């Protein structure tokens, strides 16, 4: 059962080929890792998957439907949620509001309902608020839910971003370097959180620099180098792939 399937994806920026002929698929319920040296095209691929960039070539299938030049909000509605490498929260809104905004695609109240304060709207608003609170507890945000996002610590902001993405009830949760800047304990907590998310039935796509985390968490891993996929497979295979060692692990001397 494939949830996401990319074939022959290419993306150019001016003269630079950021992605060349990338094909991969992610099965339902998998934790799929994406690694590669800096500038290998991981984030570009991520942006293609979430609709921020339109690919120049290739095919994009998600949940049995083909998407062409789809906008981010369309893909979000289809069930792809993401976090950002350089955290992009709504800084001047509260933690609770941030998560409630994540519920946008799964709620419907419009202008008239809001002005009339209709019963349906009040019920939905309450459900939305409750759900947002639950999610904040789930990711383990200890500070009051009314704290402004920008006043949270770095690790808390990372977790708030995950809660906000989970609020969208996604089929695929795409995490862009969620462990960046975390200490060992925080990373361990994150690992448990991601496993919990998978056990709740959500497919996870993970970009990470922390090779140990990736290898310990992912079912399958793909390696990008210079915009091309050079290897794919279960972590042990990839770890021993000579191309990967020379392109990535070798360079880092790990």
């Amino acid at each position, binding site marked *: 059962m494939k949830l996401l399937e990319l074939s022959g994806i290419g993306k150019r920026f001016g003269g630079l080929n950021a992605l060349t002929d990338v094909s991969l698929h992610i099965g339902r319920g998998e934790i799929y890792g994406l690694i590669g040296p800096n500038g290998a095209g991981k984030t570009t691929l991520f942006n293609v998957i979430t609709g*921020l*960039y*339109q690919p120049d070539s290739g095919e994009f299938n998600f949940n049995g439907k083909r998407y062409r030049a789809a906008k981010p909000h369309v893909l979000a509605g289809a069930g792809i949620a993401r976090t950002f490498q350089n955290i992009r929260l709504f800084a001047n809104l509260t933690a609770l509001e941030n998560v409630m905004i994540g519920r946008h695609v799964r709620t419907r109240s419009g202008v008239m309902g809001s002005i009339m304060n209709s019963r349906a709207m009040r019920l939905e608003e309450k459900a939305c608020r409750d759900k947002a609170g639950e999610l904040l507890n789930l990711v383990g945000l200890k500070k009051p839910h009314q704290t402004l996002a920008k006043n949270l610590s770095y690790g808390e902001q990372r977790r708030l971003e995950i809660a906000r993405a989970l609020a969208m009830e996604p089929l695929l949760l795409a995490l862009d370097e969620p462990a960046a800047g975390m200490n060992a304990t925080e990373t361990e907590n994150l690992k448990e959180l991601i496993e919990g998310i998978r056990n709740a039935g959500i497919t996870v796509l993970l970009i990470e620099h922390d090779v140990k985390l990736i290898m310990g968490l992912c079912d399958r891993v793909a390696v990008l180098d210079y915009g091309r996929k050079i290897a794919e497979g279960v972590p042990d295979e990839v770890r021993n792939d000579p191309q990967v060692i020379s392109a990535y692990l070798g360079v880092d001397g790990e």
Partner: protein
Amino acid sequence: MEIFLQQIINGLVQGSVYALVALGYTMVYGILGLINFAHGEVVMMGAMVSLSALSLMAGLPPLVSLPLSLLLAVAFCMLLGYGIERIAYRPLRHAPRLAPLITAIGVSIVLQNLAMLIWGRDYHSFPQLFANHAHRMAGAIINDIQLAIVVAAFLMMAGLMLVVHRTRLGRAMRAVAENQHAAQLMGVDVNRVVSVTFMMGSALAAVAGVMVSANYGLAHYYMGFLLGLKAFTAAVLGGIGNLRGAMLGGLLLGLIESLGAGYIGDITGGFMGSQYQDVFAFLVLIAVLIFRPSGLLGERLAERA
């Protein structure tokens, strides 16, 4: 045919001025990603200062007083541009996008009203320093001032291109425009580059201001607003952030406006006349934004995050 040629000449003259002003918008945008709303007022200030300088030096021979007053206006505007950036934009470089836009509006209002307090609400006439010979060209007329405007504008644009592409400073400017952070890591003093950019843009604006008022023989505290709006349109038409685009856009807009105003009466069967000239720039702006938001020579903007 003669009318057509005449409109082309008028368009080229007006377009050269637009191009100079548009360069200021595009340079700042290229480097900071910011629309300097106050730029039109810098043009106005240039015109006003040169005018005051000219009237102070009324006794001197025009060959001395004109270059001197031009120099004074350029120096004043460079200082003004530097000050605007330091006061209104630099502290907000990492603030939400709305903030520098609002301060820019503030600066623009302040300059306009300061000018009104200093120079009053009246139109000031630009003194005629030289005999302004008219030359006949295939039935159309071009006079000395117009000729000088076109030649000077092209010389300045060529000079700017040389600076940007052939000097160390120009390389630093392009580096900052490409990636501010990386440029900083490479040892480029970003703040200095930004200041210099503002000053260069303002110098061009000062010259443009003198040109406009010499051409029309008038200067006015309110002249910067519409001129700024049109020059910005020119920058967008050519592809904002692109220097060649600004020049091309300026000239094109000048031509469109001039031809449009010349023929609108015929097109609408007399319903609309040349008083609608100012509408064309706006229509061009809207059309560009709908059909080619990146402009003629620009890269795609909408996708840039």
